[in-house]
Each structure stands twice: as structure tokens, then as C-alpha cells.
């Protein structure tokens, strides 16, 4: 190898190292901070010096945070199940049946998934008050449908469109109704796509902030992002950075693990939502 090539190699790996450090460092630093308490919090440490679990004990032993985690789990799971249930049949119709206005309908659905949430906030607020759902988990499950449902329909439709026509033809020849085709023929093939879209919708619902902030009013009905955003100390000036970082790590570690385990599926799901080959 020539010197020039060596330089190129070194520059390339330097770039790789910069990218990795830039991506990972903030989370690493949050973990380091979450293990420090008292005055140690205000010394700047690049390496973890102590492992003090008291921030975690404070957060998890607190009155409301475990409840907030349960709220988030319940709301995100229910939202995903609801969205997938509606999306499987709808995307079959959109992907496999020719009818007039299909393209327009698809574009409308995509348009809804890009809605600015603030534009429906006032109307949703009224609807939720009207239905008596304010400050309950159902208010959030209902409102999260606005972004989970179009997204799941869109991804499942692109996935189903690529399944070979032959399997469906065989079922039709055997006299299977569309409902049988979906449940017996397509559903078994759809599992990978369902896992991907379900996971992405779950992450979206887990992270949502605007609706959760607006449609809940008490500490026990909050979801995790709202709880973390509004976590305050004894006085307004005193921000409890230690517990905030501990809470952040608690809610982020499961997500990071999920993302790393399902890396390939997530990448393919994300890109089929936007870029279609």
C-alpha cells in the first residue's frame, strides 16, 4: 500500500470514530451523570468514578414514576394493537384490490401521517372533552391513532403489494373469500412486516409529547416523556439533574435494546415508509 492509501485509510477511520463518538457520547454522559449524587454531580467527570444507585432508587421508589411507566406501556401497546388491527384489512384492500380512487386514497393517508399535530389539537381537545376521556389513557390512545394508523397502513400496503400474486390466485380458485385470504394466506406471511411496523408505531407512541402534555392534567395519568419534562425539584431554580438522568436512562435503555435487536427490520421499515425501490 502506498503512503497515500494509508492516509486515506486513516482519514476514513478517523471519520468513523468521530461519527461513533458523536452518536454515543450524550447517552454515555447521561449514564455517567445518573450515577452521581450531591456535589459530585457538579464536578465534570468524563469517566464514571462511582456507581451510586440512589438516583434510580429515588425515581423508581417515588410516588408517581412507576405509575407513569405503566401508563406509557399500556397506552403504547393498546395504540399499536388497535392500529395494526385496523391496518391489516385496510392495507389488503389498498394493496391487492383495484378500485377507482385508490391512488388518491393512498395519498390522503400519507398526507394525514404528515399532519402537524397542533392543527388538530383544538378539535381533538373538544372531542375528548365531549367523550369524557380527558385525563384518561383513552384520550391518548384515541389521539395517537392519527399518526400510528396512517403509518402502519402505508408500510403494510407497500409490503403486501410486493407479495406474489400466485398465492392469492390459488386461494381464489379454491373459493376462498377475501376475509379467509387475509387471515389464512396473508397473515402468516405478514409477521415480519407486522413486527416492524408495530415496533415503529410503539416507539412513536412511547415518545409522543404534545398530546400527552395537553390531554392529561394529573401526575398519575402522565406518560413518561411528560413526567420527565415536568420533573422538578424543591424550588424552580433547583433542577434535579441526577433523577432526571436516571429516569431518562430507565426509559431509553429498553428502546435502545429493541432498536439494536431489530436493527435490520427497523431500517427496512423506515425506508419502505419513505423510499420505495
Amino acid at each position: 500500500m502506498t503512503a497515500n492509501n494509508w492516509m486515506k485509510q486513516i482519514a476514513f477511520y478517523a471519520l468513523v470514530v468521530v461519527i461513533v463518538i458523536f452518536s454515543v457520547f450524550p447517552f454515555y454522559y447521561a449514564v455517567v451523570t445518573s450515577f452521581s449524587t450531591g456535589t459530585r454531580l457538579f464536578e465534570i467527570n468524563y469517566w464514571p468514578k462511582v456507581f451510586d444507585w440512589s438516583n434510580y432508587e429515588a425515581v423508581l421508589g417515588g410516588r408517581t414514576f412507576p405509575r407513569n411507566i405503566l401508563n406509557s406501556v399500556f397506552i403504547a401497546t393498546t395504540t399499536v394493537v388497535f392500529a395494526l388491527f385496523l391496518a391489516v384489512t385496510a392495507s389488503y384492500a389498498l394493496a391487492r384490490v383495484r378500485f377507482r380512487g385508490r391512488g388518491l386514497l393512498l395519498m390522503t393517508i400519507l398526507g394525514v401521517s404528515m399532519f402537524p399535530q397542533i392543527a388538530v389539537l383544538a378539535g381533538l381537545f373538544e372531542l375528548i372533552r365531549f367523550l369524557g376521556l380527558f385525563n384518561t389513557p383513552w384520550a391518548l390512545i384515541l389521539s395517537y391513532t392519527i399518526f400510528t394508523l396512517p403509518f402502519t397502513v402505508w408500510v403494510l400496503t407497500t409490503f403486501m403489494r410486493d407479495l406474489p400474486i400466485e398465492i392469492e390466485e390459488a386461494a381464489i380458485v379454491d373459493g376462498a373469500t377475501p376475509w379467509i385470504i387475509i387471515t389464512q394466506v396473508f397473515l402468516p406471511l405478514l409477521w415480519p412486516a407486522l413486527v416492524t411496523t408495530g415496533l415503529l408505531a410503539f416507539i412513536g407512541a412511547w415518545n409522543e409529547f404534545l398530546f400527552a402534555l395537553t390531554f392529561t392534567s394529573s401526575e398519575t395519568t402522565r406518560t413518561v416523556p411528560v413526567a420527565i419534562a415536568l420533573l422538578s425539584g424543591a424550588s424552580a431554580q433547583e433542577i434535579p439533574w441526577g433523577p432526571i438522568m436516571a429516569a431518562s436512562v430507565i426509559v431509553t435503555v429498553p428502546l435502545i435494546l429493541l432498536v439494536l435487536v431489530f436493527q435490520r427490520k427497523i431500517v427496512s421499515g423506515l425506508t419502505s415508509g419513505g423510499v420505495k425501490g
Partner: protein
Amino acid sequence: MANSKAAVVGLTLLQQRQRAAFWFLAPMLVALFCVAAWPLLRTVWFSFTDTSLNNLYGGKWIGFDNYLSVRTLESGRVIYRGTLVDPAWWNAVWNTVRFSVVSVTIETVLGLIVALVLNAEFKGRGLVRAAVLIPWAIPTIVSAKMWAWMLNDQYGIINDILLRIGAIDKKIAWTASTDTAMYAVLMVDVWKTTPFMALLCLAGLQMVPRDVYEAAKIDGVHPVKVFFKVTLPLIKPALMVAVIFRMLDALRVFDLIYVLTPNSAATKTMSVISRENLIDFDKFAYGSAQSTLLFAILAIFVSLYIWLGRVDLSGEGGK
């Protein structure tokens, strides 16, 4: 005879499928109508009334007064009121546009660089890709808090690093100072969403056939030239779609700014100011007018972008 019979059966089969399709679509359409179309219409309606938060059904129709009202006093002075002459609103519009254009531009460039790195073959590529996904996986609120701590004026590590390498000579109050608040927000947003851009760019890059590069190498074309003359035009469709997705996301930004720089006029965006009026300041109808305007701006922007850029979002083109 046999032919026409087959045609009849085919027709009924198609009709049967279309009928089933209708019932399959109906629940989803009803759900979307309830959570999207209806609330949007109600928001627009509220914007033409004087509805207040505590009395949602007591509003009267007041026409365009929330947007713009012109009143001439007896003295002959003309008074303009409404969102369209509200400096706070125009400040929010300007902040949003500035934030969106700058953040999406930086993210596209960095995303492309990261995607080019991930598209090359090297040892540990899987690990690097996993690391790049981490910022994307972290909830926005959590990343805002993490960075708020790192950007803390007294105890923040960013000030410490910059002091050590001599880039600054005194500590900066990143999120509190009006001069730097926007930089802070941009920094966090770029960190958080570059992975998404990188993944979309990577998907585009992987569709470029490898032999294109081989051919260019044999012909001795400089890699930079190959990138601008071959790669970029080939991934342009994917890039256009990625940019519009990110742009729409950026134009409606709320949570990052609400948490990282609360109540800072230097970063307040359209979504933040709308919600403030809707919920916090009890100017429900006024806030509705602002969110309606935001929706209109986004709709016009998307239409222009798709029309001018000839973006094919449906994925059905060519099929």
C-alpha cells in the same frame, strides 16, 4: 360462449372483491375521520369564533377577526388587530422557517456523509450502524434533557470541553441566552435526526448498482466527480422524499423547543406559540387561528414541493 361466461364470473369476482375492500377500508376511514378530518375542521371553525377554553360551546362567529380586524376610531386612527399583525406570530414564523431550513440542510449533508461511510465496506460496519441508530432511538424529550444538562452554563460538559480546547474563553449560557438558544436547538436536532436522514440516504445508495463505480474506477474518474455526476443524480429521488419528510417534521417542531428552551422568544416556533395561546393563555380561538395558519402554510409548501420537484410519493410510479 365459454368466453362470455368467464367474463361474467370475472366481473362478479371483481365486484365481490371490491365490496369486501370497501368493508375492509371502512373502519380505518371512520377512525381517520374521527381523529384527523373532524378535529381539523373544528379547529378551523374555532378560528372564526371567540370560543374560550372553559366554554367550548359558547363561541360566537366573529369572521376573520382572529386573523385580522381593522377598526377605525372616531379620531380617524386605524387599529389593526389579529394574528397577521402580531409581531410575536411573525417572530415564530421566522424562527420556524430558519430552524427548518438550517437543520434540514445540515442533516441532509451530514446524513449523506454518514450514509456514504456506512455504504463502504469496512470492519465493524454493523457496530457503527448500531451506534448511529442510538440518537434516533432516544425519545426527543430525553435527548432535550440530556443536552440541556450538557449545555448547562455552570456544570455543562460542552462548556468544559470548549474551554479546554480554547475555543471559548468564558462559559456560555447556551439555552438561556437569546444569541445562542437557536444554536443549542439546532445542535440537538441535528444530533437526533441525522441518523434518520442517513438511513434514508443509505437506502438510496444501496440501490445504485456497484458496477457503476467499477466502471468509473476503470475509466479513472475522480471519486468526487463520480459522486456529483453519478451517485447524486441516481439517489436524488430518494433524497427528495427524505428531505420533504424531514422538512414537514421540522416545520411542526414542538417538544424539543418546549423542553430545551422554554419561554425563549429566540426559538419559539409556530407550534409552540399556538399551543401557548390555545391552552396556557386561554386564547383558544386565537390559538386555533394560528394552528390553522400553520396547517395552511404546510399544505402550500408540500403542494409546491411535490409539484416543482416532481416527487413521486405514492411508490406506484413505474409499476
